[in-house]
């Protein structure tokens, strides 16, 4: 549970960096921040523009450690909400994440990031929400696997390879 707003700020910046880094490996991924981290953003911490099957690929990486899924050319916008919690994400917090999805229907998908794991109640809320609109949650372990799949590229070598 985040009892330190500095943790929240760092978490949001870190997730921004992780998704931005994926954009140096994959084509057509852009990350937008509309506000400073200290502003309540109505549940929209980041907006990611990305191919429509990006979360399928991230899900596979989170599950198996890698993925051969090729990304499509159809772009969608995704709402990302970051919870830099050092424990489990509980049902009440997940309910609010899903509520924020309803308040932001302009996004095609909703991704939550943070926590070591989801409680049973939180998983059930997420599964039900996912039946209506793609709603995903990436825990710390999932993010670690995603970071391993997309290692940070030294700035001097950014142009050595064409993005996938």
């Amino acid at each position, binding site marked *: 549970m985040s009892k330190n707003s500095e943790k929240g*700020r760092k978490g949001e910046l870190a997730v921004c960096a992780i998704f931005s880094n994926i954009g140096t490996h994959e084509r057509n991924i852009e990350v937008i921040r509309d506000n400073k981290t200290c502003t*309540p953003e109505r549940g929209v911490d980041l907006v990611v523009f990305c191919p429509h099957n990006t979360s399928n690929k991230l899900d596979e990486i989170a599950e198996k450690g890698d993925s051969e899924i090729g990304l499509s050319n159809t772009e969608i916008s995704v709402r990302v909400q970051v*919870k830099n919690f050092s424990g489990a994400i509980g049902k009440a917090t997940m309910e609010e994440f899903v509520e924020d999805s309803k308040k932001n229907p302009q996004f095609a998908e909703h991704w939550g990031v943070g926590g070591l794991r989801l*409680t049973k109640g939180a998983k059930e809320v997420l599964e039900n929400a996912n039946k209506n609109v793609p709603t995903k949650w990436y825990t710390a372990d999932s993010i670690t696997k995603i970071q391993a799949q997309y290692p940070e590229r030294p700035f001097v070598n950014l142009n050595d390879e064409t993005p996938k």
Partner: protein
Amino acid sequence: MSQKLILVKYIMEDGIPVDETSENLGSAYLPDELHEAILHKGFYSEINIKETQGAEPEISVIALENLDEVINQLEAEIFELIKVAHIHTGGEVHIRTEIERDLRKLSDALKVREICKVKCDEYADRPDILVILG
């Protein structure tokens, strides 16, 4: 980060809230300054609740305490926001973005106050109903 205050009702087991039974009764976005004030002044306690019925209490939750003090703090903040809004609307030139920001901050603070007031006024003696950070 979109931190919220959530008014949550739990079913208790042996006096301990159970996560999977939670029902959200209300919520409000928590402005960062208020978040900092609550943490800095220690108006919270970290409690462990049960994930499911029969489980050990291992899920950590931050629950607000001293809600009367939190409300006092909030009201002082709200009065300051009103003063600022008055300054921004008192002259001949009204800057729309400033007024929008003032109203949004005021709205957020009022909603947080409402959550705290509901707990204080209606559920003060209900240990199964908590105001948590989420």
